[in-house]
């Protein structure tokens, strides 16, 4: 039954994925027909099409895809570790920790609003963000471990930390004056504004590598889903594994936040939908969750770019407007 369902779901997801990619490349102030966009990708576009697609939309799309994969995988890991379907790196302050580090780093490295990061700084930025995410994850982990880490406590402490860190980001970025408001928005709500090839070339290898590592560990993740006693009897060192996967989640969430800011709820929604579609076994579930998150990010970002063009809405905001009602629905349903 499940296997049969899986066979239907995969092609549908694949079609959705291709459709959203083509839609993303075509839709914009400068419209390109789907056929032309494929031709451009194959290197036969006009000069204008090359500029729009190859230089602007393609890199931004790739960054968006990486961010989606990273956050959904981080969310899936956190949900497995905490055994709580409502966990997400954005809600519990890991993204905010990364954003704080990134904000500090960026404001130290750039002088004024429109200056961009230097070539070396682009490589250092994700490391700083990952360190920030790591610090905040460590704080959450240490504070919530009293007689063992309790999932609810972890969630609560994460929520508190998140509130505090966001206050800090707002303060830090506002110091600069009124013109910095867009920057605050990017960090606090997540945006793909200005994502170009210089971001893409850093985040793609990072996310690909981490995603592969997580995928290779699917059996251990499945074991973590069992009760603690079962997992131990299978020979799993629970604390070690939890810490390991938590650090993977930190790297993924930190890397994503470094380039797109604090995008919330995507890490919550996509694993949840995926679990409903293909069940909790990580081998299939991680893939499906990643594809769903890509589709969501691409649609949300296309809407954010174009719906009110030329005004752009941060993609994180679009996602949270649709994500929050879903989240509250989930909570109401859960016993």
């Amino acid at each position: 039954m499940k296997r049969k369902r899986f066979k239907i779901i995969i092609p549908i997801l694949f079609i959705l994925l291709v459709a959203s990619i083509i839609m993303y490349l075509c839709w914009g102030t400068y419209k390109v027909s789907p056929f032309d966009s494929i031709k451009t990708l194959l290197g036969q576009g006009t000069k204008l099409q090359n500029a729009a697609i190859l230089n602007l939309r393609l890199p931004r799309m790739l960054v968006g895809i990486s961010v989606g994969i990273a956050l959904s995988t981080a969310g899936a890991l956190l949900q497995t570790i905490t055994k709580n379907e409502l966990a997400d790196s954005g809600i519990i302050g890991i993204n905010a920790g990364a954003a704080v580090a990134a904000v500090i780093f960026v404001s130290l490295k750039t002088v004024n609003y429109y200056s961009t990061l230097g070539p070396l700084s682009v490589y250092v930025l994700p490391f700083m963000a990952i360190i920030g995410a790591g610090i905040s994850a460590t704080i959450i982990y240490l504070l919530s471990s009293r007689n063992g880490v309790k999932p609810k406590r972890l969630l609560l402490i994460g929520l508190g930390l998140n509130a505090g860190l966001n206050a800090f980001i707002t303060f830090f970025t506002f110091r600069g004056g009124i013109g910095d408001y867009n920057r605050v928005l990017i960090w606090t709500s997540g945006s793909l504004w200005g994502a170009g090839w210089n971001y893409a070339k850093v985040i793609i290898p990072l996310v690909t590598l981490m995603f592969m590592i997580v995928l290779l560990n699917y059996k251990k993740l499945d074991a973590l889903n069992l009760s603690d006693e079962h997992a131990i009897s299978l020979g799993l060192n629970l604390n070690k594994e939890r810490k390991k996967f938590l650090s993977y989640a930190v790297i993924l969430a930190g890397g994503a936040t470094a380039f797109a800011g604090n995008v919330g709820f995507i890490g919550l929604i996509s694993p949840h939908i995926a679990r409903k579609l293909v069940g909790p076994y990580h081998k299939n579930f991680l893939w499906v969750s990643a594809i769903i998150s890509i589709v969501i990010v691409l649609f949300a970002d296309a809407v954010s770019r174009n719906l009110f063009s030329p005004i752009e809405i941060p993609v994180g905001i679009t996602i949270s407007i649709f994500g929050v009602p879903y989240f509250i629905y989930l909570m109401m349903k859960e016993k």
Partner: protein
Amino acid sequence: MKQNNKNTITFIVCSIFVLIIGVFLAISLGVTHIGISEIWNSIFNYSETLESMLIRDMRIPRALSVLLTGGILGVTGAMIQGVTRNPIAEPSLLGVSQGATLVIAIFYAVGITINTTNVMIASLIGATFSGIIVMGFTSRKSNNRSIAKILLAGTAMSTFFISLTTIIGLLSNKSQFIAFWVSGGFRNATWADFNLVAIVGILGLIIAIFLSEKINILSLGDDVAISLGQNPERIRLITFLVMIPMCAAAVAVGKNIAFVGLIVPQIVRKIFGEDYRKNIPFSFLLGAILLTYSDIAARMVYSPYETPIGIFTALIGVPFFIVVARRERG
């Protein structure tokens, strides 16, 4: 019992003393420091010097607005913690304040004049709307009322309202003004603001004190309340109805200030136990103290610029939050 009364009196005397010093410091300290005699003269002998005008039209209304807003925040925190039996509940962590901000942003975007009355109307509409939603998910069957869940729902709600506020700001091209209004704190507090928080705050405090006996019963749990012949849903509804205009006034005058409503009732409960007849008035007092000193810090730390007051309340509030959260089991 006698010992208890003595403690209470000591507490009241000490906090009023600390509060008076705070207000005095708030009036005196600033970019221009003003001495006692100057303050005395400008209040009691009407003089037209620059300093006395500064005191009369800027410092005093601001100091008093801060004081009353702090009191309001403390009381609303105590009330919501009592009726939801949730030690971490607080209007701005549950999204009520953000709902109020959203409607204020809509007023901004539409181009309605921003003055105290209009802001209060907007804030009241928003707080009512979001307050009803919060009431919805706190007063359902008790299995849905775990602390973590209410807080998660609140965080989600505030994110939602902030997102909508941002979109409205971006589309109307007023996002920077709205953001500056929100982070402005008490920068532009006037006598009109003072009147607003004074009326709402004092009325609210009196009604809250009258309600405190019922809140006491409700804080023992719905079952106990029912067995004592009370209707828990009704008490909760009335408490929310009193709380919503208080939250609205606090947002209209002080913008979004989180954590005061969380910290203050916690401390008061530590000292006096779970008796809301005392907790509510003392939360007012302690909230006033906390916010008065936070505002002094907000003005002085980065002088001559102002730091958003919410930073200071968050700085004290987050550790508090974590300590309380750590007590959570499960």
